[in-house]
Structure formats: C-alpha cells, structure tokens
C-alpha cells in the first residue's frame, strides 16, 4: 500500500513536472500564442472593420471623423479602465456611471458657483470620485457581501443624492480653458483627451506590471485567501481598487464635461446605467477575467476602441441609430463565445 502511495505521488510529481516544463518552454508555440491572444485578435478586428468602413464610406477616414472617433474612444476607454480595476479583484462596480456623474457635477459646482480655477475644481471632482469609491470598498469589505449588490445600492444612493442636491440642473459656467481642452485639435486629428487616456493607460500598465502594489491587487483577485496568508492586506487592497475605480470614473466624467462644455446630470443616463455596457465591453473583450486575478490594460484599451469604432462606423453607414445598442449586445455575446472557444482550444493544446 505504501508503495502504491509512493507510486501515485511520483506519478503526480511527473505530471507536475511535465506541466511545468511545458509551461516553461513554449517558445515553439509562441507565434501561435501571439496569434491567438486577445490583443492580436482585437487588432485584426480593428484593422478589418476600419477597412470595411473606409471602403463603404470614405467619410470614415476624414480628419474630423478620426478626431471625433479618438475623442469618443478616450472617454469609453477610461470608463472601461474604471471597471477593469475592480474586476481584477473579482468584483464589479455597477456605480461607475453614478460616481462619474457625481464627480463631474461637483467640479461643475466648484467652477460655476465658487469660481474656482479649473485645476482645483478637477482635483475636487476626482476627490469626490475617490471618496465615493472608498465608501463602496469599505462597505464591501466590512460586510463581506458581494460587490454586485452593494454597488447596485450605492449606484441608486449616489445618483439620488446628486440629483437631489443639484435639482437635476446642469452647470454651464465651466472654465473656458477647461472646455477648450476638450475641443482642441493636435495636428488637426488628435484630441488631447486621447493623450490623457494613453497616459493613464501607461500608468496602469506600470502599476500592474512593475509595482508591488499592483501585484498585490492581482494576487488579491486571483486567490483572496492565499493572498491573505502571504501577508497581503486583502481588505485594504479591495478598498484601494474601488477608490481607483472611483477616480477613473471621475476622470471619464470630467472628460465629458470638457467635451460638451457643461456638467449635465443625465450624461450617463438614468442612475448612470448607460455607462454599464461600455464599462464591461472593454475589459471583457480585452481578456480581463471576470473572476479576477488577470488584467490586460492593452486589451481593455483595444476592446473599448473597437467598440467605439463599430458604433461610429455603424452610425456613419446609417444602419439606423436605434439599432446600434442591439449590435453592441450581440458583439458582447459574440466576444464571450469566441473567448470560450479560444480558451478551450488553448487548453486542449496545453498552451495555457
């Protein structure tokens, strides 16, 4: 019997070794791996659809169209990042829209009613974003309940308080410098908002790839218990992620203010629900696991960009503005199904 056990153990060990050696030495498959990666797939889709749109409607490649595309994508990518940083902990944040609008409205209030210079007002708005995110995080870790139900409730609460305080009225006295920023054109096609998004993307990449804090976020998402046992303050990490999510939602809200020249309570729809689909589309298309622990900043960026491009292209082709939402839903469904097939293929070939 003892021999049996040893035999089994050595078998298991061999299996383990076989697995690790396969994992350690995949350079033979590396091209297949890159070709099957999410990021590459998204890039192919972006090029493919850009070609299709440009062929059907040459206006797609006009300077103004490209400028508008970049500007809209900048906001959508930021909304995607805001959800992404919570998804990596294995949670969700349904209140991104409500937080984004609240932060934007607070900045509008500071600029219009208190006449504050715009950098201070922006800082104030982001502080509100961080504070609301912190409230989410603290309630979640204190109660031990799933972030879905907590952020569903706070989405209603944050939005309700914002509407109550502002009486559902917009702030239009936005500093001209700030709104000029959202309408500026660099080299006649690039929006400065897109540059802000790219800088944030680089920052997030550095955070998750090179800093201890970023790795601790990922570890918390991958296996909370294991992270806790290896000395990570799991609860604090979850709260930080929600704060970061709040700040990024605030950035997205402020970008919209800068673009439209006013802080409007309805800019994310009823309760901020209109942000939910773009918020999930980016990270899900980009290969961020909903169970947490894995993140792809580049994937989210490309995913959100693809979604924005498809929306713009469909509108340009005049397929009927009202049907766009249906196509986005089908795209999300299609993306998760393709991901499922891709993942099972990689698993069968033992590439993961």
């Amino acid at each position, binding site marked *: 019997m003892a021999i049996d056990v040893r035999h089994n153990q050595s078998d298991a060990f061999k299996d383990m070794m076989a697995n690790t050696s396969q994992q350690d030495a995949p350079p033979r498959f590396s091209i297949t791996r890159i070709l099957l990666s999410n990021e590459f797939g998204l890039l192919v889709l972006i090029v493919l659809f850009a070609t299709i749109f440009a062929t059907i409607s040459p206006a797609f490649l006009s300077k103004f169209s490209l400028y508008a595309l970049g500007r809209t994508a900048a906001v959508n990518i930021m909304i995607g990042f805001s959800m992404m940083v919570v998804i990596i902990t294995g949670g969700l944040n349904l209140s991104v829209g409500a937080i984004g609008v609240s932060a934007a409205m607070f900045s509008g209030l500071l600029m219009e009613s208190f006449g504050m210079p715009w950098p201070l007002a922006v800082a104030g708005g982001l502080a509100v974003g961080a504070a609301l995110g912190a409230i989410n995080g603290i309630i979640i870790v204190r109660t031990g309940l799933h972030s879905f139900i907590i952020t569903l409730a706070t989405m209603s609460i944050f939005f309700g308080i914002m*509407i109550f305080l502002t009486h559902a009225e917009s702030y239009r006295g936005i500093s001209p410098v700030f709104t000029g920023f959202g309408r500026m054109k660099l080299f006649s096609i690039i929006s400065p908002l897109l540059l802000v998004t790219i800088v944030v993307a680089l920052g997030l990449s550095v955070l998750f790839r090179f800093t201890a804090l970023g790795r601790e976020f990922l570890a918390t998402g991958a296996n909370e218990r294991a992270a806790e046992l290896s000395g990570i303050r799991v609860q604090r990490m979850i709260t930080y992620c929600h704060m970061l999510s709040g700040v990024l939602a605030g950035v997205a809200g402020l970008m919209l203010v800068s673009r439209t020249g006013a802080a409007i309570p309805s800019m994310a729809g*009823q309760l901020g*629900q209109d942000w939910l689909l773009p918020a999930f589309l980016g990270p899900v298309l980009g290969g961020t696991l*909903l169970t947490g622990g894995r993140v792809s900043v580049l994937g989210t960026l490309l995913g959100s960009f693809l979604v924005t491009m498809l929306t713009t292209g469909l509108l340009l082709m005049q397929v009927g503005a009202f049907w766009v939402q249906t196509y986005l839903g089908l795209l999300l*469904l299609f993306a998760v199904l393709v991901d499922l097939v891709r993942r099972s293929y990689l698993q069968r070939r033992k590439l993961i």
Partner: protein
Amino acid sequence: MSTRFWESDWFGPFVITLAAIIVVGTLNPSFLSPFNIQVLLLAISVNALIAFSQMIIIAIGQMNLSVGAIGGLAAISFAGMMQVWGMPWPVAAGVALGIGLLAGLANGVLVAFTGISAFVITLASLSIYKGVNLGITEAQPFYEIPDIVKSLGNDTFIHPLPWLVIPCVLAAIGLWYLLNRLPLGRSILAVGGNEHASELSGISVRLVVIVAHAISGGLAALAGIMLVGRLQLGQPTIGDDWLILSFAAPVIGGAILSGGHVSVGGTLLGVIIVAIFTQVLVLFNIDPFLVQVVLGGLILWAVGVNRWREVRAQRRAGQVQI
C-alpha cells in the same frame, strides 16, 4: 424547516409594513382613503411581478439584468400589435407574453450551455432586447390603446381592488406552489443552494436554469403588458427603471443572493414596503428625487440584516466554532 414564526423571512418585513401603515395612516388620514389604496395596489401589482421575475433567478443563485428590457419589449410588442396590426387585445397579450418567455428562454439556454456567468449574458441580452425595442419604436410611444385595456389597467372590480391585482395574486400563489410543493420548484432551490450537489443527485441543472429564466421572462413580460394598461400607452421607456426595484424587494423579503433561499410572501411585503416609502415621500412633500436614495438605502439595510441572520443561524448550528 421548523422555525418559529418570528424567525421566518416574512416576519420582519410584516412588522415594518404594519408599523408603516399605522404611523402613516395616523399622520395623514388620506393615506387610508379607498382611492389611495387603489393607487397603491396598482403600483404594488405591477412591481410585485417585476420583483418575482428577479426572485426566481435569485433562487437559482444568478441574476437577470435584462428584466426591464424584456418587460419593455413585451410592452411595446403588445401595444404595437394592437395599434399597427389591429389585433384583439387578448391575442396581442398572449403573443407579447410568448415573446417574454422566449427572451427569457434565450437567456437560460445561453447561460446553461456556455457556462458564462448570467451577469454577462443578461448584460448582453439587456442591450439586445432594448435595442430591438428602440429599433421598432424609434423611441416613439404607441398611443392607440383599446379602451378595455385602459380600463382593465386602472379600474376596480370590487372597490378598491383593481383588476391588476388578479394576475399579481395568481402569480404569487403559483410561485409559492411551485417553490414549496412541486418537484421542479424544489429543484430550482436545490440548484441555487448547491449546484454541484444537485447535479450529483440527478437533477438536470441545465433544464432547471433554462426553466427559471423562461419563467423570469414571462413574469417580466406580464408586468410590461400590465403597465401598458396602467399608463394607457406603449412607452418605449417601460422597464428602464426596474433594475434597482427588482433586487430591492426580494432582498427585503429575505432572499439570499447566493441562491437557494427566497420567499414569495417576503418579496410581496418588500414590494409593499417600497410602495409605502415611495408614497410617503409624495404625501409629506419630500423631494421625490430621494426615492432612489431610499431604495438604495433599503437594499443596504436588507442585505445587512440578511447577512446578520445568516451568521447567527450558522453560529447556532455550530458551524462557526472552528
């Protein structure tokens, strides 16, 4: 199962409902006028179906974000078929109900056969159904609703009981019977309690998930159809604000979001509490914008209480003594 009655799910909400009725009725006698009761019952009847639609999915431990989108699609189909094709209303209602069942069925099939989380699937289908709704209506309401539908949606059959109470009560009794007396209902709760164990004990988890989603779609569609009668027009925005309510009522009624534990009576009381609180804001001239804050607060409070009860029950069962 043998819990004392004051420990059951419905007892807490019941006390709150009773206390709220007494307090509000004393402070403002018009609250208990027959007309006001009729108005309250109209709101409660529709909202109860919305809550049941989510409750049956909470029972299997999932969530359905597309409840409002299905309800809205059924509502505009019902109104549109009557206005554009001149269909008699019972046929139109039947077809709209069928559309709701199919929409729910599609959700269920996708969740059951792909293994992708219900959250993502129903987020996608929310967008698809809402997009179809907007594509058909181009955001314009259907106005030509037959008088009989308008009357059924607002009038009473015995003063002050409106006609809309009937489908609501039937759905409540049907769901109670399903969840407490029928093997299918027990399977639904078993899958919510422990999916793996249910599979091993011979329950077809896929079938149960599909059936639960189909029921959810049907109930949401029924709510949408009833709302067309009550609002007297086929609004494309029907369903846009159902999400928070659909979770609030079951949770107030003691539902555990991880599944396996829901209460039909508790959910109904949850709907009544929400309706009373909403009306209080109007009766006492408090800003109606605060409704959202109250709803969110109720959810937080209810999940907190449910959590506390869960922990206490575990402690009593000795599971926490490690």
